[in-house]
């Protein structure tokens, strides 16, 4: 199951359509890492709206991906975590620490724009407004 990666200006959008196996996630991670360099993107949006379940492997892989993307000079944001998934992740303590998470695609683009126009700004210690 290959995840489609779309280019939107300076950003890449990976839209996960259905539940992913572990190696699909790994492939996605590798694909995004490569494409960020090729397309010289400033930001990556991973859209998980369609996922009704996320396990520890998924959260760990996405956390790693965020760190890798940052090392390559771009920002990553996860959009569309469903309420049921959020509750489950919170309960299991899989909190995607250090990864920006926002409500939807619109917010995701707004977040990346904010980050792009203030590259020197530290993440607000109280949150991610």
């Amino acid at each position: 199951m290959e995840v489609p990666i779309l280019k939107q200006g300076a950003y890449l959008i990976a839209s996960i359509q259905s539940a992913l196996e572990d190696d699909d996630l790994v492939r996605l991670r590798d694909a995004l890492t490569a494409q960020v360099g090729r397309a010289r993107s400033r930001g990556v949006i991973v859209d998980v709206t369609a996922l009704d379940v996320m396990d520890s492997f998924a959260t760990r892989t996405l956390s790693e991906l965020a760190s890798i993307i940052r090392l390559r000079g771009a920002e990553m944001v996860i959009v569309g975590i469903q309420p049921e998934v959020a509750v489950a992740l919170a309960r299991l303590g899989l909190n995607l620490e250090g990864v920006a998470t926002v409500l939807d695609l619109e917010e995701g683009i707004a977040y990346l724009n904010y980050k792009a126009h203030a590259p020197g700004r530290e993440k607000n210690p109280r949150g991610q407004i």
Partner: protein
Amino acid sequence: MAQLRTRENLRPGSEPGSPQQLLSALVDHLRQNRTPLCEEWVQRITEARVLTAMTREEVFAEAIAVYNNYVDALESGTMETLQAYARNLSERIIPRGVETNEVIGIVLLLRDVLARSLFAKYQADFTVLNRILDAYEPAANRIANTVAVGFVQEKERVIREQQEAIRVLSTPVLQVRERLLILPIIGVIDSQRARQLTEQLLRGIRSNRAKVVVIDITGVPVMDATVANHLVQTVEATRLLGAMVIITGLSPEIAQTLVTLGVDLSKMNTVGDLQGGIEEAERLLGYKVLPVSELPHTE
């Protein structure tokens, strides 16, 4: 009449005077005399001063329907149709304020009216009367039982619905500015309420596209480790939806409890009172509230 009677099982039989034949005779008699018996029943209902919430015409119309269902149930011996009718009737009359004692009362009145008409018809032959009653009484008792239970179950269903509505209304999620929600919590939070609260909050964040939520716990008297953990998890789940939580109204006791419990407070953003919380939220969202006098050049 205080004799010991053996209760015969109702078996289909073709012998004269078999229970089945008696039952048929009974049912025919009740059907043929429906109108006078119904009128007598309604008369008794009026005299007993029950169903005062309904007009005489309404009572009579329902009485005919109940009577028909009653006689059908006597004939078939099965209660399903009657159960369904009892539920339907209850759904209609409960909102009219009809009470349980009234429903049981009228069913028993009908039982009495029909029994009296049987006494009148078979008074010449005591043996036959006894056997008719053998067929009638168990069935009539089952019917009274079915109707009463149906009514009570319907009442319980209404009560459960109302409790659920109260539970939902007691934790309203309110939008006070664009992208800003308040969740005022009043009363004790148990695990179930905490779960329901979190669900409502997340749904509210999604539909209002909120970025900041102020959870006010001024009205929460007690907090324990379980509730504190629920709160922390709610804050976490909210963050995953891209919103921020400010908790306000921690009493000194609750603040002390949280510290003693060793709850991870770094994850929680707290402000003393609701006013402070809203002001902080507005600041984060980029709002600035000024008195009109400070605005430049207003009319």
